């Protein structure tokens, strides 16, 4: 069954039923906007709210995650030997994830799941998760996702894509995982495949037409790293930056983390926390030397990574899905669209 109609009257009941199998995550309204949170007890996802302040990356990559632990009690045989925090392979589903956030998870996967290394924490969580997205009928003014290789009805990285039809959801089941989730909800009203796909196409086109914000990235690939790195515009771009990490924290594709050990009496834990290249500590060596000591270097690093290094390394577009969260949240209004424009149109003067 490829398309399923879900009457909104049955939505809550179905979601409740899925809890027998799944732990649920979804958007929840809070003081300053919505957040993707663990939907405890009988909390329902707020499917109508605007885009979440932070992205959905935290479902697989929490801001703080305990990864290893040990005992410092030397009378114990295994003292000081780090052990993995028992993995949680229980099934979970993210409801109402935005298509660009799902695409972002695929970009983050390039880092956490490679031929050489597999990050067990991220990958285990990824495998246990079903992504139930909802198309964005009315993209906001900050959305430039279509220019960043995704879009309001993009299917990449999703297991189910739903279209909001006022009184009902029309769900397009994209993977077996997605099918299993629908079954667990008891959603089984099949919709005509051809008609449904036509409707999706119309909605997608309408939504994409509403996107007025864009970036051009076509010339980035042909420029050399050094050309951009040595370009004269970085001081001006960086001047207003206060080097908070807001842009990196709200970003769905920023994947950097820091490892911290904490001990309390005889027990010790190792955590990983989101880190940010905006902080001088990010690159500070134990010797005290800091290869990225100035604000300009740090700001340049963020944009070069997103718009040049990533592009060159993976050949899968830029490391940005056009959600616009960093544009919205930056306290000094540094706008990645403007920076991209400057980088893309830069011609080195001979």
């Amino acid at each position: 069954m490829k398309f399923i109609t879900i009457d909104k009257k049955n939505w809550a009941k179905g979601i409740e039923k899925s809890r027998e199998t799944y732990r649920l995550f979804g958007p929840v309204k809070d003081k300053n906007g919505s957040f993707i949170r663990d939907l405890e007890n009988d909390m329902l996802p707020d499917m109508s709210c605007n885009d979440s302040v932070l992205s959905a990356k935290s479902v697989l990559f929490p801001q703080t995650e305990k990864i290893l632990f040990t005992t410092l009690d030397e009378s114990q045989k295994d003292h000081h030997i780090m052990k993995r925090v028992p993995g949680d392979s229980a099934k979970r589903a993210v409801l109402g994830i935005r298509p660009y956030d799902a695409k972002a998870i695929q970009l983050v996967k390039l880092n956490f799941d490679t031929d050489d290394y597999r990050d067990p924490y991220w990958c285990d969580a990824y495998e246990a998760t079903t992504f139930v997205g909802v198309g964005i009928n009315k993209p906001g003014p900050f959305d430039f996702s279509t220019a960043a290789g995704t879009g309001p009805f993009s299917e990449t990285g999703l297991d189910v894509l739903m279209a909001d039809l006022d009184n009902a959801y029309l769900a397009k089941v994209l993977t077996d995982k997605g099918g299993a989730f629908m079954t667990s909800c008891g959603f089984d009203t099949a919709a005509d495949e051809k008609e449904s796909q036509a409707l999706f196409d119309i909605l997608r086109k309408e939504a994409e037409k509403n996107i007025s914000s864009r970036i051009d990235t076509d010339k980035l690939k042909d420029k050399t790293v050094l050309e951009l790195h040595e370009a004269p515009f970085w001081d001006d771009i960086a001047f207003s930056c206060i080097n908070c990490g807001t842009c990196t924290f709200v970003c769905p594709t920023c994947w950097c983390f820091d490892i911290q050990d904490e001990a309390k009496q005889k027990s010790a834990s190792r955590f990983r926390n989101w880190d940010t290249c905006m902080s001088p500590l990010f690159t500070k060596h134990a010797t005290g030397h800091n290869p990225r000591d100035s604000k300009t270097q740090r700001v340049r690093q963020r944009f070069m990574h997103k718009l040049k290094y990533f592009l060159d390394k993976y050949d899968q577009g830029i490391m940005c899905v056009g959600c616009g969260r960093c544009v919205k949240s930056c306290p000094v209004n540094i706008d990645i669209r403007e920076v991209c424009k400057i980088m893309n149109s830069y011609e080195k003067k001979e």
Partner: protein
Amino acid sequence: MDTCIQKIREIAFQLLDKKEVERVIGFSNGTIPMATSPITIASKQDTEKLVFNSTCGLNLANYIRQQKGKIAVIAKGCDSRNIVTHIIENQVKRDQIYIIGVPCKGMINKSKIKALFEDEILKFTEDGETLTVESSLKKEKLNKKDYLRDNCRLCQHRNPVIYDVLAGEPVEEQVLDTPYPDVEKIAALDADARWLHFQELTKNCIRCYACRNACPLCYCPTCFVDESGPQWVGKGQDKTDVNTFHFLRAFHCAGRCTDCGACAEACPMDINVRDFTRKLNKDAFDMFGWEAGLDQTKRPPLDAYSPDDPNDFIK
């Protein structure tokens, strides 16, 4: 206030033209509604980029340290008080800074305006005391005075306290019978409710440190939260660590904070960080009759010993 921009541009143009300063630090238009961005200008042709309106809520005193040569800076009342604090704390020399003072009628509370709309704001314009705000669903005409930031509503130093030139006529200062109603409200709660208030306040903090980094007072080369040998505070999302950051940062600002509101303005989570600092400002005023940044010749109360200090322990 928007009328003073021509004057600001003229002054900036003259200063750069006569090479009296190397650069001018001010605000430029943002790329999204209700946003302006700090900018530095070195050429007189660029003075057209300068803007000044009710969205210039950051504090430009945060941008004047460690600059080479003489610079000019645009300063509202609070910015000027932070420049005074910088001078007292030897962060800048008075003769290195040319202060273009701007009498200020307050900056707008962007979150409060955003909260009026279900969708994103597409357009924001300001005409005197009237704000016009538009989203795709509706258009609102607002009275600016109803949408001022809390610190601006309670501000008693709207005119710059120090300047080389004023870019507008001085505005009438507000005289308030109760300058700290917010602090009194929190203080009236019992201990448990007060604790809950602060727990709730920091609940969504992501430790991006935008509050600290937007604050002109927070210029320590290494902040205590960033120290690693020894490490004073855990770096994760543990509640105790998050709160430790906020509590200690507030204490570091005691007797120095001008309530400019840059911390709350910068916070991406809309945390009213001022709930921490305001109590200390009130204490500094009640105990020492002190308001930060008003006088270049006086040491701040926590920086000096005085025989008539109110506390017993010191005598």
